[in-house]
């Protein structure tokens, strides 16, 4: 039986089998390639998406477990936190190669939704599972502080 989920506010009936990771449904079946494959074992965070409002590693989520859920990918993140993160990311020129950045951005939005004024420690803890091979961590941290400023203004 097909699994039905809502992806970026559109209901989708999926043909993939229930054990298929959400990541591959997004990329291969739905052609939403903004979400990246990094490791496939929840070690890098590149595949982070919002699942019912919470950041999750889509490589670890079997679609059979999320029937009826809401999924938001980097292509459709929205709201004041997303706007602030987007603006801050551009201002701080965070991105280098960019491969991890869709995961970093989704995770940062999740952080600011939970904690609109994070400390360095809060950021390091919440973002600790999002690996960047270009080591943009300092700029990520600065951009999250900047996004918090934008939210507070």
């Amino acid at each position, binding site marked *: 039986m097909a699994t039905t989920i809502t992806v970026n506010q559109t209901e989708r009936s999926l043909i993939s089998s*229930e*054990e298929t990771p959400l990541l591959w449904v997004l990329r291969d079946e739905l052609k939403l390639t903004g979400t990246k494959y990094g490791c*496939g*074992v*929840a*070690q890098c965070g590149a595949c982070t998406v919002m699942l019912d409002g*919470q*950041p*999750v*590693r889509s*490589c*670890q*989520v*079997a679609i*059979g*477990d999320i029937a009826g859920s809401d999924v938001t990918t980097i292509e459709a993140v929205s709201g004041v936190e997303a706007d602030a993160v987007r603006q801050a990311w551009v201002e701080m020129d965070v991105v280098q190669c960019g491969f991890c950045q869709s995961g970093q951005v989704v995770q940062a939005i999740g952080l600011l939704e939970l904690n609109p004024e994070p400390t360095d420690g*809060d950021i*390091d*803890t*919440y973002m*600790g*599972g999002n690996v960047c091979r270009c080591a943009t961590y300092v700029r990520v941290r600065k951009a999250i502080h900047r996004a918090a400023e934008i939210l507070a203004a």
Partner: protein
Amino acid sequence: MQNTRALMACALVAGLLLAPAFAADDETVAYPAAGTVDGATGLEAWSRIYEVASHPRCANCHTGESDVPMWSGPSYGDEPRQHGMRIRAGESRIGAEHLTCSTCHSYSEIPQTVPHAAPRVGASWQLAPAEAHWFGKSSEFICAQLRDLERNDGRDYLALADHIGHDVILHWAWSPGVGREPAPYSLAEHIMDIHLWGAAGQPCPQD
């Protein structure tokens, strides 16, 4: 011939007595009544319980006042180390104050078939309560803790056995997915050991 028949009868009786003891369905298992097991047998059962409690599949998430899970065991090299990614479970023990365990450890009954992937189970992934500190602790320490109602959530041995039998996150220890060594013995054997230990009066090595 009579001796052979007697031996066969004994074997059949023994088989009938023992086989249900390790059955997966605890409804069919006859557990010993309180006071019917001698101390030596109880201590032997405890030593097996400690093997389970101190195994990485269990102890890594029983880190006491520390809210940081551990990474240790055959696939992690010689030295135990803290869970990577700056993970902290917080007072909630599910990471709600920091980063929820469910970010990576999904709620799923679908077996994890990818080596090195995040463990998952059909329950919310979490650290054990701080009072249940097992990682790096001795047999004596854990034994005293498990028979102390103040530190084991008010559970007598029957309640402990029931808890282990019905809390599915604990069952993960025996089916941890590809690439991870399961806890020793089996879930059914472990529950039987809890009963043997309890029926013997919960003896500890330091007694």
